[in-house]
């Protein structure tokens, strides 16, 4: 079992997302995260799917995705050099006592405080999944009020591109 990041270019048509998520559930494949949004070409969306499985399962996943009529291209980003980023918004307790510490912690992780109230901070943090996990772990668990994560987006390094 290893973690893979699959990037998919798909026709921007109604139902394409459910075709893809349906394929994963019907065939028992894992989805850790799935993100999707239109690209610079409005007729296409790009999807990043983080999944895990044996090499055989990952091979089947890419083949089965390719079989879907609306899918234009599929690559396994994790096969080569790539960059992965995820955005997290995390709301934490920040009363008089904790304010200083919390600010320092956010700085260490290069997070930005984007909203402040009497007793909370909302911190924006970007990075790969492991970095976001590390930030959560480094906090006193009782101080976390709410978290929301986008799931990973990925892109190949250098000249490695995914285009129609």
């Amino acid at each position, binding site marked *: 079992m290893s973690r893979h990041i699959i990037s998919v270019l798909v*026709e921007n048509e*109604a139902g394409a997302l459910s*075709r893809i998520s349906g394929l994963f559930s019907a065939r028992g494949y894992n989805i850790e995260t799935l993100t999707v949004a239109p690209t610079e070409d409005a007729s296409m969306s790009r999807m990043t799917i983080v999944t895990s499985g044996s090499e055989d399962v990952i091979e089947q996943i890419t083949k089965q995705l390719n079989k879907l*009529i609306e899918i234009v291209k599929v690559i396994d980003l994790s096969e080569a050099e790539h960059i992965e980023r995820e955005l997290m918004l995390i709301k934490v307790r920040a009363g008089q006592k904790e304010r200083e510490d919390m600010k320092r912690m956010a700085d260490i992780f290069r997070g930005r405080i984007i909203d402040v109230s009497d007793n909370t901070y909302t911190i924006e943090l970007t990075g790969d999944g492991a970095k976001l996990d590390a930030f959560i772990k480094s906090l006193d668990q009782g101080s976390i009020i709410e978290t929301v994560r986008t799931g990973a987006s990925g892109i190949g390094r250098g000249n490695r591109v995914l285009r129609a």
Partner: protein
Amino acid sequence: MDRIKTQTLTGAEIVIRCLQEEAVEYVFGYPGGAVLFIYDELFKQDKVKHVLVRHEQGAVHAADGYSRSSQKVGVALVTSGPGVTNAVTGIATAYMDSIPMVVITGQVPTHAIGLDAFQECDTVGITRPIVKHNMLVKDVKDLASAMKKAFHIATTGRPGPVVVDIPKDVTTATCEFSYPDEIAMRSYNPVRKGHPGQIKKAVQLLLEAKRPMIYTGGGVVLGNASSQLRELVKQLGFPCTNTLMGLGAYPATDRQFLGMLGMHGTYEANMAMQHCDVLLAIGARFDDRVIGNPAHFAQNPRKIIHIDIDPSSISKRVKVDVPIVGNIPDVLDDVLKLIADQKTQDTSAWWKQIDEWRGKDCLKYDRKSKIIKPQFVLEKLYEVTKGEAFVTSDVGQHQMWAAQFYKFDKPRRWINSGGLGTMGFGLPAAMGVVLANPGATVACVTGESSIQMCLQELSTCKQYRLPIKIVNLNNKYMGMVRQWQQFFHGNRYSESYMDALPDFVKVTEGYGHRGVQIDKPADVEAALKDAFARKDELVFLDFITDQKENVYPMIPGGKGITEMILYEDL
């Protein structure tokens, strides 16, 4: 060529015009509220003929049988809601066996979608996992291109059913109509040619093989590659086996044919699969009913070459050494060119071994029985029809016996639901076969349980005078269920006995056909001869057969391909 100038047409007119453009001869369907305008347009023309079934499942199976027995696309037309849900079994059946089909479904008007309207269901959602593709057409301007796409997708690459869902208001809206000659899709471009380097490697392996085996499936039939396969097998002099879906691709009466393989395949075919050193798999998918337990199959080392149009069929259950993705006839043409004047290894020792396995006579049964043995009926069916019939079947023991005992020499003659295993398939499929092959001999081999799942279609057969010969192997049990219960559930025949069976002769007569019951082995041949001599009549032959007969050989579920239960072991 001058195309007719564009005209303004309603959506319903466009549907019919598209069917005409695709040269569709028959549409199998059942009317209802959401498709009334389409039916109105059907009424106003006579190029596309409509066959009115008695249940939507029958419509889709009939379109399926029509397609399997010809090289054409089957077309079905059903209404929204229950029309669609009734069609689902038929669509899933076609999907599992990769049958090219276009299913047009009515939908509630666009403004009512999502409001739980009368006879509304999420057709695209329900059918999504059982179609090659589906589309909801919300704008009449997209209708013609959606229809073109549907036929294009259904018939190219690995074929399959495509559903086009059309809301009622789209059938009344109008737009300029012109039917596209071609359709270009950046996201869908099936390959044709195989990779030349891979083909070379494959040929090298074939020429070095000492214990070769050729294993072919439904892909050879669907790809119309039977003649290339025959040439290849002859040129190489290798043994060949067909899957349940592939029967007829290689002539069953030829010496190089080892019979069907798999769960109820022959001893020699299964043994040769396990012990070969080079396996050439063509248009087959190593499914669980074919190679049994993959771990057991992997115990013997062998090189595997796999030719298939669908990359996802390759290395799905069994790792292969030389994958070749491509259109089967194209790939085989290339292979044939490369082996033209090459010499193969001496395979005489291998053939000697195969003949020893053949000596087991694994399909033997009690020929002296006083009760009709189902195998005997099928042997006689083969003799009486001279092996020339189209044979459809339902699902269960009768299906396996038909596959074992009817020696198909031609492709597209054996029509059965191999993948999904749909009881109720045989009779409606036979209707499609008759319409696709006027004047041909068509038999539906079935059992008393399966036939009752689509029995209502006897009425359709009456309306269109479809002279199907129904060979009902009546053992009063869901035979295959009973067999599993005998072998694996301590003879506890839980709910597999068919009590309160109808008098099939009377039922058939009630529908306006001829019914005959046969209960003595001595009467079997005469009954078949008499039935098949009645060219214009449907005859229902109700054979009262041995209740406890089993299908042998049998590989129990989860066991290896050579771990067969044989008749003689008992």
